C-alpha cells in the first residue's frame, strides 16, 4: 500500500507542476476571461449551489444542536445531547462500520470485475469503440430505482432464478436470495460498475502506448509489460473508481431499502428512519452530518494523494 501511495503522490505532483506552469504562461500574457463577465456567468450556478446545497447543509449543521422534545417536535434550545448520543451509543458505530464494510466490499468487487472490461475496451482493435462505451452508458437511461426493482424479479421467491431451479428440480424450495446483504451488494455493483469501468478506461486511455513498446523491447513479455507499465499507470483511475464506488455505496439508501432485509440497513436507511420514522430531526441531522463529514474526509484524503480531477475525467468520458 505504501508503494502504491508513493506512486499516486508522484503522479499528483507531476500534474500540479504541469498545470501551474501552463497557467503562469497563460496569465502572464493575457487573461483568458473578463473578470466581470466570468462572475456574471458563474453566478447562477453559484447561487443555486449556495441556496440549494450549502445553505441546507448549514441549516442541518445548526439542527444538530437543537433539542429533541418529542416525535416531530424540537426546540431551538442549543444542546450537545445529539452529538453525545452519537459518540457514546455503539448502536450508531455498528451501523457506521457495517456501512463502511459494505461500501468497501462493493468498491473492491467493482474494481476486480470492472478492470477487465475497461482493459478490453482500451486494448481492442474493434473499429467502433464508441459503441462499447455507449453500451456502458445505456443503463443510465433507465431509472436507477427501476433497475433496482428489477432485481426483485430475478432474486425473489417467485423470481427467475428460483422458478427455473425449482422447475428443473435442482432445489425443492426457493433459495433465500432477496433481502440479504448479498442482494444489496449485488444491487450496488450493478449500479456502480459503469463508474468503475469508465474511470479505469480513461486512465488507461491516457497511457502512452509507446511505453509498452519500450518495455517489451527491453525484454518484457506482454504480462510483464502490463505489470511494469500498464497497471501502475492505470492505478489513478482505479483509485478514482474505488473512491467513487465507495462513497456512492456508503451513501446509498434506495438499494438497501429495496433489496435488503431489516438487518441489512445502511447508515442512509438509519437517517431515513430517524427522520421519517422517529421524527427526530435533530438526531437525523446529526447522523447526516456525520456521514457527510466522513465521506468528505475519504474524498479529501484521496484528493491529497491522487487529485480529484481523475474522477471528473472519468465521469466526462
Amino acid at each position: 500500500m505504501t508503494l502504491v501511495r508513493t506512486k499516486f503522490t508522484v503522479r499528483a505532483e507531476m500534474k500540479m507542476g504541469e498545470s501551474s506552469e501552463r497557467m503562469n504562461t497563460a496569465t502572464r500574457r493575457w487573461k483568458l476571461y473578463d473578470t466581470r463577465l466570468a462572475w456574471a456567468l458563474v453566478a447562477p450556478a453559484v447561487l443555486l449551489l449556495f441556496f440549494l446545497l450549502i445553505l441546507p447543509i448549514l441549516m442541518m449543521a445548526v439542527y444538530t444542536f437543537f433539542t429533541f422534545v418529542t416525535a416531530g417536535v424540537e426546540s431551538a434550545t442549543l444542546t450537545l445531547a445529539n452529538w453525545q448520543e452519537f459518540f457514546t451509543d455503539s448502536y450508531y458505530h455498528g451501523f457506521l462500520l457495517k456501512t463502511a464494510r459494505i461500501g468497501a466490499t462493493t468498491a473492491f468487487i467493482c474494481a476486480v470485475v470492472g478492470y477487465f472490461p475497461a482493459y478490453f475496451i482500451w486494448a481492442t482493435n474493434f473499429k467502433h469503440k464508441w459503441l462499447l462505451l455507449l453500451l456502458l452508458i445505456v443503463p443510465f437511461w433507465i431509472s436507477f430505482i427501476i433497475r433496482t426493482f428489477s432485481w426483485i424479479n430475478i432474486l425473489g421467491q417467485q423470481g427467475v432464478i428460483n422458478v427455473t431451479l425449482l422447475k428443473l428440480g435442482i432445489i425443492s424450495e426457493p433459495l433465500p436470495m432477496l433481502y440479504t446483504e448479498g442482494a444489496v451488494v449485488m444491487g450496488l455493483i450493478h449500479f456502480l460498475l459503469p463508474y468503475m469501468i469508465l474511470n479505469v478506461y480513461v486512465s488507461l486511455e491516457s497511457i502512452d502506448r509507446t511505453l509498452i513498446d519500450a518495455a517489451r523491447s527491453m525484454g518484457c513479455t506482454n504480462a510483464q509489460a502490463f505489470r511494469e507499465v500498464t497497471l501502475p499507470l492505470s492505478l489513478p483511475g482505479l483509485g478514482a473508481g474505488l473512491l467513487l464506488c465507495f462513497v456512492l455505496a456508503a451513501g446509498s439508501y434506495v438499494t438497501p431499502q429495496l433489496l435488503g432485509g431489516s438487518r441489512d440497513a445502511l447508515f442512509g436507511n438509519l437517517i431515513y428512519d430517524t427522520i421519517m420514522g422517529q421524527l427526530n430531526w435533530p438526531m437525523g441531522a446529526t447522523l447526516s452530518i456525520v456521514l457527510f463529514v466522513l465521506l468528505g474526509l475519504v474524498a479529501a484524503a484521496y484528493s491529497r494523494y491522487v487529485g480529484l480531477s481523475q474522477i471528473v475525467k472519468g465521469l466526462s468520458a
Partner: protein
Amino acid sequence: MHDTTMSDASSDPRPFTAGDSSQGGQPAVDFRDIDIAYGKFMAVKDFSLSIAKGSFVTLLGPSGCGKTTILRSLAGLVDITTGQISIGGRRVDDVPIYKRNIGLVFQNYALFPHKSVFDNVAFGLKYRSVPKSEIAAKVTKALEMVRLPGSEKKLPAQLSGGQQQRIALARAIIFEPEVLLMDEPLSALDANMREDMRVEIKKIQKETGITAIFVTHDQEEALSMSDQIVVMNAGRIEQIGTPQQVYDEPATGFVANFLGKANMLPGTVSAADSSGATVALECGSDVKVAAPRALAKGDGVTVVVRPQKLSVTSGADGNRLAGRIVSASYLGGSAVYEIDIAGSIVRANSAIEGKPLAEGDAVEAGFEPHDCILLDAQGRRIA
C-alpha cells in the same frame, strides 16, 4: 566513385550493402525482399538492405515513405508481409520483440513516468537477470556516458527534453543490444539542443561500437551523422550511399531534390558529342553540360543545379541564365536569392561581393558545365 542507382540494383541480384562489410563477414542486420502491407496499402515494397556491424545507417525520407515502418519491423512492432529479417545471422521474423535484443529510442522519449531515472535505465538489465550490484555499477557508468551522472533519483518529468532523450539513450544501450534503433529521436527537441545531441549520439555510437539505425526526415541530421544513408520514397529505396555520394551524386531526381533543394531545369538535348551535350532548357536558354556517354538529340533531360553551385557574381564562366531577383534573404556571409528566369524560379546561394543584390535587380545566374547533374526522362541520373 562507386555509383549506386536503382538501375544498378536491378541488374545486380545481391542486396544493397550499407557500411563496410569487408571486416565483419556476417552483416549485423539483413533485410531481404521485405514487403509490408497495411490492408491494401503497401507501406514498404521490395526493401533489401544489409547493414555492417558497427556502422551508423540512416533511413532518410519524407513522412510516409516507410522508414519508420522498416524500423518497427526490425524491432518486432510491425509484422512483415513477405521477406525475411536477420539480426547477426539469426532470423528474427518470428521472434517476439522481447527476445530480439534491440535497443529502441523513441521520438517522444517514452521514459516510464512513474519510475526514477535509475529504474528506467536499469529496466533492460532487470529483465536479463543481471545481479543487483552489477546493475548499480552499470547504471552509474551509463549515466556518465550520457553526461547526466547523479540523476538516478530524479523522475523523468523533472528533466528537460534533451536530458530525457539522453536517459532514453542510456536505457537503450545499457544492456548492450545487438542493434540500436532510433526513431526520429531529435525531432521533439529545439534546434540548439538538436545539434548538441547529434554530436553526442554519434560520439556514443562510436565509443560503444554499436550498430545503429537512425530514422529521420531531416537531411542535415542524416548527412552529419551517418556512415551510410538510405534515401526512401513511397515505400521504396531511392539510393544508398555515403553522405557525400547521396549529396554529390544523387541517383534520382527525388534524391537530388530531397537533399539540398536542388534546382530542376527540364529541357531537351539539342546537340551532343562524346564529352558533353547542349540542352535547350524550357525556360529558354541553352546550356552546356558534361555527359559521360553520348546523348541522342531530342532526348528529354533535367539539368539539376544545387543553389550553392549557382553563382550570381559577375564574371562567372560557363552557362549563363538571365533573370530577375524576386526575393533575397541575407544570411551574413552569403545570401539566398530566388531568381525568376523566364517564368521558372531558381534558387541561388551565393557569396556576397560588395553589396548584396536586392529584389528586382537583373542578374545572370551562372554555373559550370561540370557543376550540374543530368537526369534522364525517368528521373534517373545520367551524369
